[in-house]
């Protein structure tokens, strides 16, 4: 059974792009530990019930559509942007310019 720690919650929150506050961490540790404790029974289920035929139930199939241009309401979608200019989304600067090229 996996042990959930404060450090692992902080790490997973970073991966999830969610800022969590210090006082929230312990609650998440408890909640997540409870979920994973409960889910650890899955290993037993696999051992107990696996059959050689199981793989045939879900056969993935490709679903394609004609490769044709679809109408796209660009203007309408851009209107929803928190910040935009000339059909570009404006976000905080990612690469800082340092000196001249």
């Amino acid at each position, binding site marked *: 059974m996996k042990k959930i720690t404060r450090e692992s919650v902080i790490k*997973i929150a970073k991966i999830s792009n*969610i*800022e969590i506050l210090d006082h929230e961490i312990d609650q998440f540790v408890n909640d997540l530990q409870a979920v*994973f404790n*409960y*889910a650890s029974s899955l290993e037993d289920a696999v051992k107990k019930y696996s059959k050689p035929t199981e793989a045939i139930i*879900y056969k993935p199939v490709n679903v394609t559509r004609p490769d044709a241009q679809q109408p796209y309401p660009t203007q309408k979608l851009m209107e929803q*942007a928190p910040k935009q200019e000339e059909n570009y989304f404006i*976000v905080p600067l990612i690469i800082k310019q340092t000196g001249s090229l």
Partner: protein
Amino acid sequence: MNNLAFASIQTLQEKIRNKEISPQELLTFTLNRFAQHDTKIHSALEIFDEQSILQDLPTAGSSTNALWAIPGLVKDVICQKNRITSCASRMLENFRAPYDATVVARLKKSGALCVGRANCDEFAMGSSTETSAYGKTANPWDVSRVPGGSSGGSAAAVAAGFVPWALGSETGGSIRQPAAFCNIVGLKPTYGLVSRYGLVAYASSLDQIGVFTRTVSDNALVLSHLAGKDEHDSTSRHVVDTDYISQLTGKIKPGLRIGIIDNAFNVDGFDPEVSQALENALKQFEKLGAKLVHLTLPLMDYSAAVYFMVSRAEAASNLARFDGVRYGLRVSANSLDEMYAKTRAAGFGKTVKQRILVGNYVLSAGYADDYYVNAKRVQELLRAQFLDAFKEVDVLFCPVSPEPAFSFDAFATNSLAMDLLDYFTCPANLTGLPALALPCGFTSKKLPIGFQLMGPDLSEGLLFATGHAYEQSTQWHTQYPEAFV
């Protein structure tokens, strides 16, 4: 009693056809019901203005259509063009849908009127409608209790006699559980029967849109207008016959075999009054001529664990798109990473954050094999076990919940305990099978009790016919919450 409020779709249609009431009068009546009574239960996040609703009504030439001018409510995770689709979240507080979901487009084409947005758990995550960022919905039968969830607003509005139909969505039981808590009928269709285009995704491999109504025949009628292939949803299925009404004969199929999932009745904490009501329902089916077969589906006991892993993993992936860049909430910050993290911290509620964290754990190295891969294997075995059962029986009978609607905050300090209620409902989502919940009685405190019938893929016609025969032999569906009559 107010006859219009609890009238069936068929009755309303007859009144419109006979010109006893005009579409506008019916709509005004509906909007007044919300204005007068929804302050008690808060089923709707928004009711649209009359003129904008009527704009969508096709011309009177289509008045022969069974849904023409029939008002209904749409869960606020389903896009309605130019209307806000908030998912009951701060994240999408001002988001306006650029298009109609296929289900909404089909209903509008059939003449149905979508009058508003139903409250629900945030991003459809919850079993009580308590996680909505815009306030809780109350159960019309007892306003100190939850209506169930996540589609609680849809269920409450139908139960309270505001509208004869509402759309909900299910990932682990979000239609059937509120239907059972509110004494109405709720269907989770076969995965792929109804298009998900325009449904904000929670766990795409499990999500399915379904219908709430007060009677089985109304449910069959609305589904007839929703079902079928949609080019916009690659998981939607080609279906030949979607006329579910003609199959309602009032009788069960001769020799019908009903499988009773015994292990689902042996769960700890079963309310004795719920047990008794379920027993009575089974006796009623026997009277109708059904043969009862006891069986066990041991893998069902792992279904909640499978559901937690699969749904959270998919949720973490689906909800990654809400980052403040293209639409929805944005919290300003100096760097892009900080903007993402602050936006998602401010936009999502606690339950949504918790499920995203679980999902990203499930998918991360060191966890994926032990949890996600195992969950997917057990999911396949579970489906195989259900399909095997349908070699012996025609439909399966199962509780929806071991207890009636619970009080607000009953699970405030133990969210896992509430999530475990999914045990009864999530097998249908994990296996893709259809399931129909319907009323079968009340507790001594007059709280509704329901049961569910599950069937093989695309057996909606059989479920409706069986449920209809039961319903017509009982009086549960003719009882309405007193405060709204």
